[in-house]
């Protein structure tokens, strides 16, 4: 027994204090770390895959690829995973013009689209880069940039305007999807489709003929 000021320190007291702290601490730690269930393991795997998927993210635009509605989603994904977004606008130069031909109308649209993407990203505090590329082939340009950036995910929006060509989501989108070496996410706005509409909603909102 040692008297230290007002304190009386004993071996039994020290042992008791250590046992109490150790047993309470270890009990609570054991409680808070239960083994994961099968469902939780699946969920964890999916979350890991998502984190890898959005590590480097490209949102591609072109006159045939309208991805404006995908930017907000891309930014939300990027913010959650703290990754970087590249907004890419492709201007396809026809063979009748030289490869570096000036195309003021298309370039103006590109500025608007990429400016809107930047605004959304800045508002959400997400790092974004923008790039405009003139190319003969939209598909090849997207794939080349994806390779250069080592992208994990390419996000594309579709009008479904090409449904009568045998490629319902447009041929360019289907080719990119088929040849890309990374994941591709295609977003089709509901208003352009009919598959999700129930009979009831079709009746209550008749489409113009």
């Amino acid at each position, binding site marked *: *027994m040692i008297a230290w*000021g*007002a*304190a*009386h*320190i*004993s071996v*039994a*007291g*020290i042992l*008791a*204090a250590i046992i*109490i*702290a150790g*047993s*309470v601490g270890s*009990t*609570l730690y*054991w*409680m*808070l770390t*239960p*083994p994961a*269930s*099968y*469902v*939780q393991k699946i969920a964890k795997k999916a979350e890991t895959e998502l984190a890898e998927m959005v590590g480097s993210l490209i949102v591609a635009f072109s006159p045939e690829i309208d991805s404006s509605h995908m930017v907000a989603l891309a930014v939300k994904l990027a913010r959650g995973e703290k990754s970087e977004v590249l907004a890419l606008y492709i201007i396809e130069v026809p063979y009748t013009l030289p490869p570096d031909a000036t195309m003021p109308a298309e370039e103006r649209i590109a500025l608007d689209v990429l400016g809107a993407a930047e605004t959304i990203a800045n508002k959400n505090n997400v790092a974004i880069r923008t790039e405009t590329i003139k190319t003969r082939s939209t598909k090849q340009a997207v794939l080349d940039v994806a390779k250069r950036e080592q992208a994990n995910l390419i996000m594309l929006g579709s009008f479904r305007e090409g449904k009568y060509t045998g490629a319902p989501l447009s041929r360019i989108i289907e080719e990119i999807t088929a040849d890309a070496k990374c994941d591709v996410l295609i977003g089709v706005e509901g208003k352009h489709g009919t598959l999700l509409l*129930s*009979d*009831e909603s079709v009746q209550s909102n008749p489409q113009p003929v």
Partner: protein
Amino acid sequence: MATKSRANPELRRTVTPWGSFSWGYSDVGADIFVGLGLVLAAAAGASNVAFLFAGVVYVCIGLAYTELAATYPVAGGGQYFVMRGLGDIFGFIAGWAVLLDFTIDVTLFAWTSVDYSSQLLPSLTNSIHPWVHFVAVFALVMGLCLLNVVGVRESTAFNGVVSALDVLSESLILCLGFLFAFRPSLLIHAMQFSWPSPYQLMLGTSLAIISFVGLESISQAAQETQRPASIIPRTSVALILTILIFALAYSNLALGMQPWHPITDAHGHHLAFWQMFPNSPDNQGKAVALLAAQVPYYGALAALYVPVLGAILLLISSNSGVFGSSRIAYAMSSSNLLPAIFQRVHRRFRTPAISIVFFSSIAVIELVFAAVPGLFPAAASFYARFFRGENGLDFLADLYAFGAATSYSFVFLGLIGLRLTDPLSPRKFKIPLNIPMRFRGERVEFPIVAVIGFVGIFSILLFTLRTHVLGRIFGPSWLLLGVLLYLAYRRYRRLPVLQSRQRDWRNEQTEILRRSGELELMDEYLANLKESDQRRAAGSSGA
């Protein structure tokens, strides 16, 4: 044409492991704030032994609840397990005893919450200003009733924060207390020379059990807990161990404590710390705060915050009595054990207002009965003559111990019954020490620990009836009144009076497991049923 289907709303499973622990802790954790002073006053030098005996029984109770709540994760708690294992009438008796406990819980914890506050606000001291004390407790009970009627409840997050603070605080008090103020010679001296009479030891043991009441809360929140069959065993075992460590540590520290500041009696004689409690109801109501203030150095800080933390934790526990009673009554009413009026939900507030007001009124009646001797000196002589002078905290603690011991006794019997009648339900957690045997053609495991636990808790029930004058009168009266009401209700509704209603437990169990998200257990249960049916079919065709 497409058809629209709307799923029935179910309770969201948002309670995490810590959330589940804190639901239980905010109820059981508060008990030591009440029980410590009462046990030290009754059992003196054998307080640690009283806590040890009650603690062993409590471990058995905890293991039983853990197995049952993990196997049947429904919001009914003890009464559901007993109803399923033993039948409707026993389910009712267990539930009715729990209801007594919950109403006492409301008053007892509001009372001690005010006692703890009196450490900082002396005008709330019961012996000096009984009317102020009474009005404060009454206001707390009415306030909690009102808050629950309008649907304001403390959140899981709030419970979690208070529980975390309290676990940290109590661990600090105990560790620093043992480190700086524990003298083994004082503990040995107290146990040698202040050993109580057998009667006092029985009284102390029956009071010690109130430090372990409230495990019910974890099983009641089972329906909102994530993966209940996996999480509840962990949170329950952690809660059992934490509370047991605290109770044993507090009682040993209190007996062997060298106070920081000298404690003297009216004649100036020095007293040991635990001697502050006999014959001092004021001190009994705030034992942890008094102990914390006597820890050298740390006591200066603890004296300021422990009364506040204790008062908050006790108030949360009191609140759990208000909504717990309405929940139990709702579950009992759903099972046709109580009239449907207890299921009625207020149109505007969407809460079981009638149930809340009814049981809060009973809590107020109990409060008045407990406070009368302090408020009217003439009544004190009546209590002294007929109830051995028991009043206030004694009365509330008597009934609390009686209700807990009764309901726990039935839970053990319910567990044994379910092991025999429902061996096919998968048990992710099973109490150890079982005897394998065959019952009605099925392989079952008879739980030895449940028998030990039943003997332990039944002996505490007998101690309670032997030593608590008020508990002996009012506890059985409560049960008798309840059984009479139950019989009248069942006869009125033309339901089996002494028998149980027919229920499809197989489908109900499958649905319980599906709703709780325990899909692997559901598959296992269905496979067990199929195998059992095939075995029976083969047996009958062979015969």
